[in-house]
């Protein structure tokens, strides 16, 4: 399946958001996720099925003013 992860094209065999995060090495990192511009809550990542062409955003706390 072809996805976009944080703006970069990737190919994955995973089928849920939780599996994708695991595959991509996020582990227990404090991150928030969005699929196609909408929040995908942490508690639903296991149930969030990915579809070919989805755009995934994974964000974390960062310096800000």
């Amino acid at each position: 399946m072809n996805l976009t992860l944080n703006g970069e094209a990737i190919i994955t065999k995973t089928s849920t958001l939780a599996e994708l995060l695991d595959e991509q090495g996020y582990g227990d990192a404090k991150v928030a996720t969005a699929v196609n511009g909408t929040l995908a809550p942490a508690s639903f990542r296991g149930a969030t099925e990915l579809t070919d062409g989805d755009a995934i955003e994974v964000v974390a706390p960062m310096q800000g003013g």
Partner: protein
Amino acid sequence: MPIQFYDQQVSSRFLIGTALYPSPSIMLDAIKASGSDIVTVSLRRESGKEQAGQNFWSYIKDTGARILPNTAGCKTVKEAVTTAHMAREIFETPWVKLEVIGEDDSLQPDVFGLIEAAKILTEEGFEVFPYTTEDLVVAEKLLAAGCEVLMPWGAPIGSGRGLNNVYGLRSLRAHFPKVPLIVDAGIGLPSHAAAAMELGYDAVLLNTAVAKAGDPVLMAKAFAMAIESGHLSYVADPIEKRDMAAPSTPVAGLPFWNQEHA
């Protein structure tokens, strides 16, 4: 004298940003020197390999400061709203510093998008701190959208120009005497921050002026003193300006006084 934002009381009137410091340890020392109870943070794309955000977060949570997440850099209502959703989940706070940027050179707010995003977010239970201009009509609409705090700019973000429109900021203060008002952005010097507080603003939010100073820790302290000083001055009710001199030393009993003095 504590200040209240939504239902939270804080004692410091200085809100400080966490970006652009020379190192994490200088950032932490500057936050400490500022005495701030509230720090602004952001969200950025995290790489599974580098996980830079995890390090940053471990520093910030140790400060014990209240977190005000921003939507910096968002240019559309949808981006800002989704970023706010992600911030609420990650920082576990209903607070959001709402930025919808309308123009790249000035980074000035897209006030139309700002009002629309504020309405969506307040209906969802967010406590919105909108980064806005000093425009009275926009302010009215933000309050009608459910905002209980307003954050007009002093000058464009990072410009260090101080208060570009003192008249406008004074009008905003006079128009909304009870609404907590925070000057956010454009401050360069402690005297700018003191001037904002002397206008009766409730607090000042700044980042670059401290983080990019030669000695950020010393500058954080300088700003803390200026903000406190400006606030005390406002409360103390300063004298009016006058055109001509008025002697401060009593004239009565002046030695050598004669009719020529009259």
